[in-house]
């Protein structure tokens, strides 16, 4: 029953552009899909209490790898995406191994990833001859094609990003059914007990970190191609890193749909304030955004979707499980 209604909603979303092809709505929806994709990827780790505050680094790795290859060697973003994902996974592998092997967990891990996110941004800026430094660079203009991920109209990107989001959800479900998920849950609840029971802590954490990193980097490519511009402060570093975490937590990072809902809310909120108050007052929307975030973390630590679903479960008498 639940699955049917889910498919029904997806179907509606898929048909939407056919029925009502307003470029503006499609634009907002595409942004939502892309950020939902990225937030979901972050939550692969987040849901197991592995909080990374440096995922911006992976966004940047994906975007810059694909972007530089595209601009300098005409390489398709699809290839660039795969290469970026490999590099991101590699970086996550090294960091992850160092951390998990040395038992760096919890907020030390979070702070460490924060630092690494910053290092990535600094490195990207430092190589300014190649990367355009603080100002970044734009993607070359080319003939529209699927190969180059460039299109004449908004609808195509809408479908591409929707497809990616569905794939991210699919991957979530796959992970959910795997042995790894049970292991990671045990680790999340009590790491020491888990290790004595033989759960391969380092390995599972490493895998999920690498998966999360590589998928996130693909999101970076998507976003970069959507706006055709790559900037180290919007696509890497502390800002986007925190942004991703917030989007996931706001919606509820323990549920499949939570990150998507959080992303949707934030994108819409930002757009709304931008439209209503004009670009000059974008700062105000951010202030409100920040305040709402703080309030939400204080009062609804499981996010909106998480708290609502916990509430429903409680009301219907089922046990509240993560």
């Amino acid at each position, binding site marked *: 029953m639940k699955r049917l209604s889910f498919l029904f909603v997806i179907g509606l979303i898929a048909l939407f552009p056919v029925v009502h092809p307003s470029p503006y709505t499609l634009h907002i929806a595409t942004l939502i899909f892309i950020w939902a994709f990225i937030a979901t990827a972050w939550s692969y780790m987040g849901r197991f209490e592995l909080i990374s505050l440096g995922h911006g680094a992976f966004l940047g790795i994906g975007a810059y790898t694909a972007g530089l290859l595209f601009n300098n060697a005409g390489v398709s973003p699809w290839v660039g995406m795969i290469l970026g994902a490999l590099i991101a996974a590699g970086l996550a592998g090294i960091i992850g191994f160092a951390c998990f092997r040395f038992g760096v967990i919890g907020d030390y891990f979070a702070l460490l990833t924060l630092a690494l996110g910053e290092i990535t941004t600094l490195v990207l800026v430092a190589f300014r001859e190649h990367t355009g430094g603080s100002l970044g660079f734009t993607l070359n203009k080319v003939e529209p094609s699927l190969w180059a991920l460039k299109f004449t109209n908004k609808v195509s990107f809408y479908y591409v990003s929707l497809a990616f989001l569905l794939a991210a959800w699919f991957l979530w479900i796959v992970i959910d059914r795997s042995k790894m998920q049970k292991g990671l849950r045990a680790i999340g609840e009590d790491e020491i007990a888990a290790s004595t029971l033989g759960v391969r802590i380092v390995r599972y954490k490493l895998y999920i970190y690498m998966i999360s990193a590589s998928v996130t980097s693909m999101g970076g490519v998507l976003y970069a191609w959507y706006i055709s511009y790559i900037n180290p402060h919007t696509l890497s570093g502390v800002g986007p890193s925190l942004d991703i975490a917030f989007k996931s937590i706001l919606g509820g990072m323990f549920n499949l749909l939570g990150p998507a809902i959080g992303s949707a809310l934030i994108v819409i909120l930002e757009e709304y304030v931008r439209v209503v108050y004009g670009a000059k007052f974008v700062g105000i929307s951010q202030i409100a955004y920040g305040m709402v*975030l703080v309030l939400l973390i204080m009062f609804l630590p499981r996010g909106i979707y998480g708290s609502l679903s916990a509430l429903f479960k409680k009301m219907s008498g089922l046990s509240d499980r993560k």
Partner: protein
Amino acid sequence: MTVLILNALVNGILLGGVLALLAFGMNLIFGVVKVIHMAYGQSVMLGMYVIYTLTEIYNVPLISSCLIAVIAMTLLGGLMHLLVVQKLLTANRLNQLLALAGLIIVYENFAQVIWGADLRGIPVFLPVFNIGEVFIKTSNLIAFIGSLVVLGLLYFFLHKTYIGLAIRATAQDVECARLMGINPKKIYLTTMMVGSAMTGVIAAFFTPIYSVHPHFGGSFTMMAFIIVVLGGMGNLMGGFIGAFVIGIVTSLTGALASIEAAEIVALIIFVLVVLIRPQGLMGGKQTR
């Protein structure tokens, strides 16, 4: 070459003095209230904007502006504590981190909305003098000496007054402190306010040295983290030493390579400390 290194060394030490204040504030708050003040550098930024606005727009004399800024930041800290931090004391560490990180967004955008994204500075012309081949800016020297004086005052406060003693006791054992008649809520508020007052003081010292912009706080917050973790979180002496280590290292790297390289080196030190010795130089037991 040696002249370059010597100058960098001296300036690193001078910088270390102010960084020591930064670290002290964060350590005090972490040691007592047990939260990481994620927006510490951003608070300094706001303090600098207050000084700028009062001095440049309302023509308040500089010294008075600085004093008003310290008071303003103290009040802001108290407000922040009562509205946000107090409710987070029982939450898990991650939520604390994120909520306070949310404040970063609020503070930075607040600054951007009111003052815009351009650099704002106050033209303060202080002489540069030299001892032999080493050139010292008076502004840096004042900041250094001033920081040491403030640190001395804080030491006196913590060791010779009842409330300072109560703060130290609360940091060591809250429950036992309660049994002495200490009200932890008051202590937390006082500590937050003292820590915030210091951001005002730092802002005053920074004003003749730097121009401010909405993202100014970011690198200083990061720097404060690095020092605090290096010295041992919550360890005041460790923070003091760590500040000078980082001050000298970044100054030397900045002079020999580039500013970005200096930041990267500092961050790498941070990463290495977390991996190898997370309790820092002076931390006691491993409290992972």
